[in-house]
């Protein structure tokens, strides 16, 4: 699976992760070869609206360079929030 970049999202995914998230995703966006950015939500147990904004923003940047974003292993409250926000309409949630 060399064409997938895996980004592990921390337990608390909120605006405080903003900088780190941008650094990680910018690197993934620049990486040649990888066409899919997989956000691993397995550890996430807190998610706020700012984090949703960051994910949507990533989706927009990725589309501009023909890459795709997906969310995997979301569970519990994090999954509930992703569903409430209809994120799955633009990014596959697995």
């Amino acid at each position, binding site marked *: 699976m060399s064409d997938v970049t895996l980004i592990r999202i921390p337990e608390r995914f909120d605006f405080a992760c903003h900088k780190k998230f941008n650094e990680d995703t910018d690197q993934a966006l620049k990486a040649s070869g990888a066409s899919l950015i997989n956000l691993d939500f397995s550890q996430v147990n807190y998610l706020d609206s700012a984090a949703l904004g960051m994910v949507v923003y990533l989706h927009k940047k990725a589309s501009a360079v023909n890459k795709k974003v997906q969310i995997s292993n979301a569970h519990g409250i994090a999954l509930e929030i992703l569903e409430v*926000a209809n994120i799955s309409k633009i990014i596959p949630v697995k």
Partner: protein
Amino acid sequence: MSDQCNTDGSLNLVFKPVSRRLALVVDDEPINCVIMQSILEKMGFETAIAHDGYEAIEAFELLAPDFVFMDVIMPHMDGREAARCIKSMTSGRFTPIVFLTALDDPEEVHACIEAGGDDYLSKPVDPRLLRTRIYSLERIRSLYQKLSRQHDELLFKIAEEQENEALANRVFLHAVSAHNEPISGLDSYSRPASCFSGDLVLSCRLGQGGIRVMLGDFTGHGLAAAIGALPTSELFHAMTRQGRSIPELLTELNHKLCRILPDDRFMAAVLIDIDPVKGEFCYWSGGMPPFVYKSKDQLIYHSSSGLPLGILENYDFVSEVGSGRLTDIERILLMSDGLLDVRNQEGATFSSCGFKDLMDSWASNDGFFSALDERLDQHCQNRLPDDDVTLVSIDLEKALAVLNVSSDQSADLSPEPEGWEWALASGGGYLLDHSEVITALTDTKYLQDWPAEQAERLQTLFGELYNNAIEHGLFGLDSSLKSTPDGFHLYYEKRQALFDDPPPGQIRIQMTFLPRQQGGCLRLVVQDPGKGYDLTRLSELEQHDDPSRFWGRGMQLVRSLADNLIIHPPGNRVEAELRW
């Protein structure tokens, strides 16, 4: 300093070669460079040469000289422009630039100094004059360095002070408050001063269904006030659990504080035991305002008779402990002197205006803390109190009702789950981020029996409401800034900057939990000092749901998570309910 004044007052201009580093000579005439080099080297400088402005800037960057001697008219880039450039590169250190001018034209000299030159000399350069100029500029530089060092030291001290206060705050939040047991019927209110000022509330259950409550007030503020808090809290809980009496606890506390606190520091305190089995309460109070209890529609004030703790090593507490019957007593109120001494803009204390009315409201109604909050707001008008304001109200009916249940039941039956109320004001000098508030709440152990999913739901709901209150209510940030990717970054950068140096104002948080059969109901109120939401814009946003938008999701989340949501006009007070 190698250069000193001689005793006769003349300048000692014999320069020691080792004391100087590098001088940069900038001149397009090679012969001028050679002359300057020879004079400077005799004075102990090493030298470097540049032939025009560009070379000068390059050499400056590369070599970081400590003096620059600059010709004015040169090809490619002249001396003035080079000086401007060099000065813009040297923030934080002082590198003198001396212009060497062919003409003694006042206009030209003026232009050179304006471009950043620190001095000038006319050509041909007189070696004696050059030495004098170097001497005077070195003196300025040493002053500048001293100033800059002191400035750094000052910045460091300020940072250290802030760190100390944050540490003091943390000690309280985690190490002291965390050990208190939740006791229903016991509500406390605190409005911290601009910096932590040493009030602490401790509570613990006694054997046979009693409770012990202490309100202490350390002198001083910041870390100094927090020093005594840790051992006080530890002793209080340990000795109370061992069933030690009030005089025993006071003697130990006094002994400990005498040893660890400096002579001018001590702790005023009021301590109460409530014993439902004997139907009695015991109290001791030293250096505190009177505590109050309500009995048969009358308010009875008990003045403080003792000496604060930590002053006299051998002090007899036994004779100072008073007691009374619990019959007919509905409520007891403890307070620190912060409340009485809060001053309004005219300098009048709260005790002289409004205190009596407030006590009447305590006697008659249950919304006492919110009434207190309003009155203090009115009184202070956005100013922070100089001292912590802390009150503890004990509702005996509630406290003892629960206690009776647990003491009447046999040991293998667990007592009915209890309700609780928890309130916190964040802001002023101490703006907490939402995870700190959550940590403080979880430290109370109030949530320990909650199902994990409900605790998560509460965290998320609270996070949204609290961050809204901070970002919009307190900081006045506009979410629509987040509508572009750049704006999204900018928004969070601004947020961070404001968080580090927050504007005045507080966010009030209140949580009330009532257990229900196999579940519960939590009411959460978050109130900010802002102007409120634009409610019409909010509903428009919610109607035009666009999943690719970066912002505007918070309220949608809140609505879906809460079982009931009320936004009180103008929108700076939001009430949400969780039920299960």
